């Protein structure tokens, strides 16, 4: 019979809409509105998992997001699989495939359960004590074994095909939790007309009202009140209602992160709809109505399937119409479980109530329940549970003043336990608010707020329904800044409990396995052992025993653990303190955190206007910062080296074309522009004529090279500055920083023009011949337009700034045209160059060509510790300038000291040997280790134009070592190389002026 444990009536499930899903290969039938947990229980399935450490059979402990045991792998289709879903949270629907975790070969027969038999070995701190020696075992044996055994569930194997959305939102009042207190707060806040967001992790708003079927509010049923409240809220344009949305992180400035589960519950989601949406809400005020968690009781084998929280038994009966057992024993130390027992009795189930409190401490609830015909035992303790993979009995005994009387076995198939309530203060704690221990409620309650925030209802330790409503309403009004409160009349809630820690027992304490943290498999015995071993700080106990850690964050276990530690140490609870609650409150998918930032949207990929042309012409690309640059243009059958050799020769022998658009560009404008440049760069700028260019070198305050680039003077008050590709944002910020904070008196403005201009470098002896037919308004002759000058004119009818500059050492031009004209001009130049064999070249050939000339690249020859003199550029420094950024640092003792590394060339003895960049250099390869390292190779290439390898290196006192043979590390040993001038090609430099 399908769903044998579905009650004949009741519950919020839609009995007209049956659904089915699979669990461990078995088909489970349920109804729309079920969770996976409620559907499993309806089918009598209690054993749903194996515990983390001991592989003990585990069932369903709770009905919500505090579930520590019923963690399932959920498969929603190809790639849509994730582990550790709480069965009590996952909405059951057609098409789900669920399975238990941490078991092999099957859930019923799990080999790993041998760990349970060895439990006396796996005590607290087991790893720390055991896996210490021999040290060599760690990498090869211990770590692999621990890694294989660790964790629950299986990580997905393929990329997640789902879409995830992100949303920033602002509101005046954010209310977390839509139970009675949250709903009342929302009603009050909404009236103000301010923007309100109400979020709740459940599919339906109402919290406890969803299962409190007998409660009344203001003379109507709680359900009628709930429906009216939601209708009213829905009527406000200013109110955003977010069901299925968990607030998981509370950060600074009332920045709260929430995940909305948009489509997981839908069999056929709308096309393109995201699976989840991450909300990042900045709220003026926050109202935390997050409710509370019921505490388990700590007694032997309290983790047996069928043992659950008392209120959860009530929820399964009332909200899902499911009997978690036919004969249920409730064990409690407080009043709330009596409501659960009464509802179970009303549902036609057999009920026994066991109260740990002596008769005199019980309220009227005990007599009321007896009147309903339920046996109520008071003054009891629980010794243990009976059964194996499902509870079959509860062993209880009278207990007074620590003396345990005769045992009695109560046969049962379900236990509902209640050790009292713990307010869910996780978000409050994350907000950095101070918790205060309240002895009357035996709980840490929100104390001093650190942010604009209020806790209400059960989250503030207020459990009575009318009080929840009143406190919620008052907080909602106050958060919205409006006056007014209102009283609510509501049915009375049975509240109050006597705190108990681990229950008294007459069993051998060494044999008792009474679980405190069900998810992390921590027992009361583990905590006491940690104490005996000297761990007294609760933070240390947490890390040593793992209690309250991981995804669970101590929701059900925190107060029991603290209470046991407090009792064992003989110190009051406030002296023990509590551990810090960390985000996320419940696990968050990686997808939600990543959002749309995948594939093409992972990072902006910056491409130039000429990128498509390069791609069409066979370019391989390399990443330079966010840019993608053409690396080389290998032809079919050519490898990279052959391509680079060909490209390098073409530039020296004919003409090459290169996309330099990524160079950073800054327009420096104003009457004080030259003065500003004087202060920013080491070079002098005052006398640079309009139409002339200069290589500029920029230092940081510490005197080390920050950036370099050619600067053109377009007018008396206007400079066209270029920077390195990767340095563009850094240089712009550096300049703006000085301009705004140090020299606000200078009349200068900076504008980034990096992307305004496409830059086409035409380099080589035929460069002038190629561009001449395309250029108008500029005399290209050597006399009229010498090296290091700039002219404005037109190319192909497009306005251009034409630079006569060269990073190759050959005749060269850099054509700057407005970016949208870049490709058309490039194509025109390429066509005009074809008679000359024009060759597109990439960044690799560019690097080789400049190295042949000994030109440095910032970030390659420099590493943030290199001065102008180190790279032989001291001559650039304007001697007459009073100051410039970094000037004083150039006089520091260590900067002027002898022995600094200096830029030199290296010629290997074996001409074909290309050294490794970064390779270390020594004088004597026979020196014992540690050897004296003189420096390192900074750039190294094979140069087709030189017919041999070339290398640049930074070597201590390098310029004094010309002609000396040094030795460079290679993978095959040391290679001899001669120190030489860093200019390998055309050392007279005549070609550039051709």
């Amino acid at each position: 019979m399908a769903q044998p444990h579905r009650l004949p009536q009741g519950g919020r499930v839609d009995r007209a809409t049956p659904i089915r899903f699979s669990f461990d290969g078995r088909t489970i039938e349920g109804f729309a509105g079920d969770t996976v947990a409620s559907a499993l229980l309806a089918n009598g399935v209690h054993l749903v998992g194996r515990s983390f450490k001991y592989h003990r059979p585990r069932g369903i402990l709770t009905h919500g997001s505090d579930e520590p045991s019923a963690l399932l792998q959920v498969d929603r289709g190809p790639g849509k699989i994730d582990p550790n879903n709480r069965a009590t949270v996952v909405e059951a629907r057609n098409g789900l495939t669920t399975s238990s975790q941490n078991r092999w070969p099957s859930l019923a027969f799990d080999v790993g359960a041998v760990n349970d038999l060895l439990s006396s070995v796996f005590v607290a701190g087991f790893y720390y004590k055991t896996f210490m020696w021999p040290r060599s075992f760690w990498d090869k044996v211990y770590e692999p074994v621990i890694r294989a055994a660790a964790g629950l569930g299986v990580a997905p194997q393929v990329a997640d095909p789902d879409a995830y959305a992100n949303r920033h939102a602002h509101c005046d009042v954010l209310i977390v939790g839509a139970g009675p207190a949250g709903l009342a707060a929302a009603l009050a806040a909404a009236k103000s007309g301010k923007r309100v967001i109400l979020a709740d992790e459940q599919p339906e708003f109402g919290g406890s009202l969803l299962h409190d079927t007998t409660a009344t509010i203001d003379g109507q049923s709680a359900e009628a009140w709930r429906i009216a409240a939601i209708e009213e809220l829905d009527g406000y344009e200013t109110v955003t209602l977010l069901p299925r949305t968990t607030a998981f992180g509370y950060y600074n400035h009332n920045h709260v992160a929430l995940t909305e589960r948009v489509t997981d519950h839908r069999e056929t989601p709308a096309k393109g709809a995201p699976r989840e949406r991450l909300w990042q809400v900045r709220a003026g005020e926050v109202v935390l109505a997050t409710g509370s968690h019921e505490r388990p009781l700590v007694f032997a084998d309290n983790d047996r399937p069928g043992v659950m929280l008392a209120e959860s038994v009530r929820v399964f009966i009332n909200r899902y119409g499911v009997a978690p057992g036919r004969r249920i024993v409730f064990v409690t130390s407080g009043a709330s479980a009596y409501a659960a027992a009464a509802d179970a009795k009303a549902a036609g189930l057999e009920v026994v109530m066991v109260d740990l409190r002596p008769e005199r401490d019980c309220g009227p609830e005990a007599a009321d329940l007896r009147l309903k015909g339920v046996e109520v035992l008071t003054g009891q303790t629980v010794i243990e549970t009976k059964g194996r993979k499902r509870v079959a009995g509860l062993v209880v005994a009278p207990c007074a003043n620590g003396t345990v009387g005769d045992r009695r076995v109560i046969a049962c198939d379900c236990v509902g336990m209640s050790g009292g309530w713990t307010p869910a203060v996780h978000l409050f704690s994350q907000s950095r608010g101070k918790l205060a221990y309240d002895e009357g409620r035996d709980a840490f309650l929100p104390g001093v707020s650190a942010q604009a925030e209020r806790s209400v209802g059960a989250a503030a330790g207020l459990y009575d329904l009318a009080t929840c409503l009143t406190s919620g309403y008052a907080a909602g009004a106050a958060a919205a800044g409006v006056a007014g409160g209102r009283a609510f009349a509501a049915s009375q809630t049975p509240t109050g409990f006597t705190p108990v820690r681990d229950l008294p027992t007459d069993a051998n304490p060494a044999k008792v396995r009474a679980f405190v943290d069900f998810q992390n498999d921590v027992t009361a015995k583990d905590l006491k052992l940690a104490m005996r071993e000297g761990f007294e700080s609760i933070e240390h106990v947490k890390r040593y025993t793992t209690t309250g850690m991981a995804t669970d964050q101590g929701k059900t276990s925190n107060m029991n653990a603290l209470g046991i530690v407090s009792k064992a140490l003989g110190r009051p609870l406030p002296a023990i303190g509590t551990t810090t609650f960390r985000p996320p409150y419940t696990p968050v998918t990686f997808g939600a955190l990543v959002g749309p930032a995948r594939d093409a949207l992972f990072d902006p990929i910056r491409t130039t206007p000429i990128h498509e042309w390069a791609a069409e012409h066979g370019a391989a690309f390399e990443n330079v910062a966010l840019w993608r640059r053409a690396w080389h243009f290998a032809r079919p059958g050519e490898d990279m080296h052959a391509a680079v050799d060909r490209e390098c020769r073409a530039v020296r022998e004919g003409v090459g074309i290169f996309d330099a658009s990524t160079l950073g560009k800054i327009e420096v404008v104003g009457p004080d522009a030259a003065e500003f440049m004087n202060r920013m760069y080491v070079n002098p700028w005052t006398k640079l004529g309009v139409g002339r260019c200069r290589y500029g070198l920029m230092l940081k305050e510490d005197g080390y090279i920050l950036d370099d680039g050619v600067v053109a003077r377009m007018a008396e008050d206007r400079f066209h500055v270029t920077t390195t590709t990767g340095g563009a944002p850094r240089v712009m910020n550096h300049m703006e920083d000085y301009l705004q904070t140090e020299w606000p008196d200078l009349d200068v403005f900076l504008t980034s023009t990096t992307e305004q201009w496409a830059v086409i470098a035409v380099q080589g002896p035929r460069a002038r011949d190629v561009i001449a037919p395309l250029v108008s308004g500029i005399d290209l002759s050597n006399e009229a337009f010498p090296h290091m000058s700039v002219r404005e004119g037109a190319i192909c009818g497009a306005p251009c700034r034409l630079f006569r500059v060269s990073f190759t050492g050959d005749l060269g031009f850099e054509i700057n045209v407005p970016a949208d004209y870049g490709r058309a001009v490039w194509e025109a130049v390429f066509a005009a160059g074809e008679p000359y064999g024009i060759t597109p070249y990439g960044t690799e050939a560019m690097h080789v060509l400049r190295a042949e000339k000994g030109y440095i690249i910032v970030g390659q020859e420099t590493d943030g510790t290199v001065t102008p003199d180190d790279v032989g550029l001291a001559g650039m420094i304007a001697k007459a300038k009073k100051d410039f950024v970094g000037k004083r640092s150039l006089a520091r003792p260590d900067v002027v000291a002898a022995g600094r590394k200096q830029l030199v060339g290296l010629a290997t003895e074996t001409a074909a040997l290309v050294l490794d960049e970064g390779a270390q250099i020594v004088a004597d390869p026979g020196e014992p280790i540690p050897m004296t390292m003189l420096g390192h190779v900074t750039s190294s290439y094979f140069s087709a134009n030189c017919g041999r390898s070339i290398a640049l290196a930074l070597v201590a006192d390098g310029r004094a070592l010309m002609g000396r043979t040094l030795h460079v590390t290679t993978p095959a040993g040391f290679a001899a190389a001669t120190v030489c001038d860093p200019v390998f090609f055309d050392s007279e430099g005549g070609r550039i002026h051709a």
Partner: protein
Amino acid sequence: MLDRSLVARRDRPLGAAPTSNDRARVAPAPAGVRLSLRVRGAEGLSSLGLGLAINRMSAEGERFSARLGPDEWLLGAGEAELETLEGEIAAALGDRFRSVVDVSHRNVAVEIAGPDAASALNAGCPLDLSDAAFPAGSATRTLLGKAEIVLLRPTAEPLYRVECWRSFATYVHGFLVEAARTA
């Protein structure tokens, strides 16, 4: 004499067609003139939007002026209006020191319009885009995901103009299309 066949055409980085999501329609905007104007002490002038408050804009047809900071305006005009606009700046500011830089090819604009446009923008823009906080005539430099943008809301219509640098246009456009789809 320049061969007319060699006269350069203008290629915009986004050839993409508008997306058809009615609630948040994303469309690349046509090319236009953009000038970055920097000037101090010009707030008293009324022309060219110089009198605007910071983070406010005025717009008429293709012409707009957005004050992005104490001394910074982004001026927009139709593609053929560069000289006209430069002339107006000269007329308005006379000899006053200023910086005028043509960024027409640096900036690329994408428009997003429709009832979900603000929500879609909020996929990557952390600002409050409600009518109260970001009303008609708002303009600001901000972020969209990992790209810096200038966000303009010329009118009360739910139509926003996102201006970014040219090489970020593909990312920004793709981000908005995805955001419109999942808003």
